[in-house]
């Protein structure tokens, strides 16, 4: 299976997928760490894919989304953004709205706490 097909299958089979460097428990890059940290804290059930484990996926995910950087967040098969966009959306509440619309469970109080701490 090509990297593209593999990615397509993964993001269709899992509601929330984070392509990152390292794992959600042990991120290997500050940008990946920031997004994984937000999702962990908000109690989102998501699949973490370590791009460092597979060079084909590492390049494949960039071609797939036409986006040159890692991490990349996908919700219900759609590319949401990288670290900067996810951070902005978390602080503005847009990420909550997206999860609400897509029926993804998360802890609203935790999301509010992140916003309070960064206000």
């Amino acid at each position, binding site marked *: 299976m090509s990297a593209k097909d593999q990615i397509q299958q993964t993001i269709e089979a899992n509601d929330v997928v984070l392509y990152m460097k390292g794992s959600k428990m042990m991120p290997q890059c500050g940008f990946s760490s920031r997004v994984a940290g937000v999702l962990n804290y908000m109690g989102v059930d998501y699949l973490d894919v370590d791009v460092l484990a597979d060079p084909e996926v590492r390049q494949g995910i960039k071609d797939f989304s036409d*986006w*040159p950087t890692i991490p990349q967040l996908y919700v219900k098969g759609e*590319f*949401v*953004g990288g670290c900067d*966009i996810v951070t902005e959306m978390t602080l503005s509440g847009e990420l909550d709205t997206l999860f609400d619309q897509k029926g993804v469970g998360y802890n609203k109080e935790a999301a509010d706490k992140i916003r309070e701490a960064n206000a």
Partner: protein
Amino acid sequence: MAMEGKDIEALIRAAFPQAQITVTDTAGDGNHWAAEVIDESFRGMNRVQQQRAVYASLKGRMDGPQGELHALALTTKVPE
């Protein structure tokens, strides 16, 4: 090869001549950058489209293990 802030700004400037561009060395190590780009052409685009356009202006320098730009935090906005 690491890039300098003025090189980053020049690349973005070439694609967005009228933009307000602020490039900051966030770690003071010449390797971790932040760029804020405010441009009228972003109007009507979502953030993914805006940032994709900025990445395109950097012409592959973000890519791959040999990418000259290791870390660039992007903020894109439409003028108020």
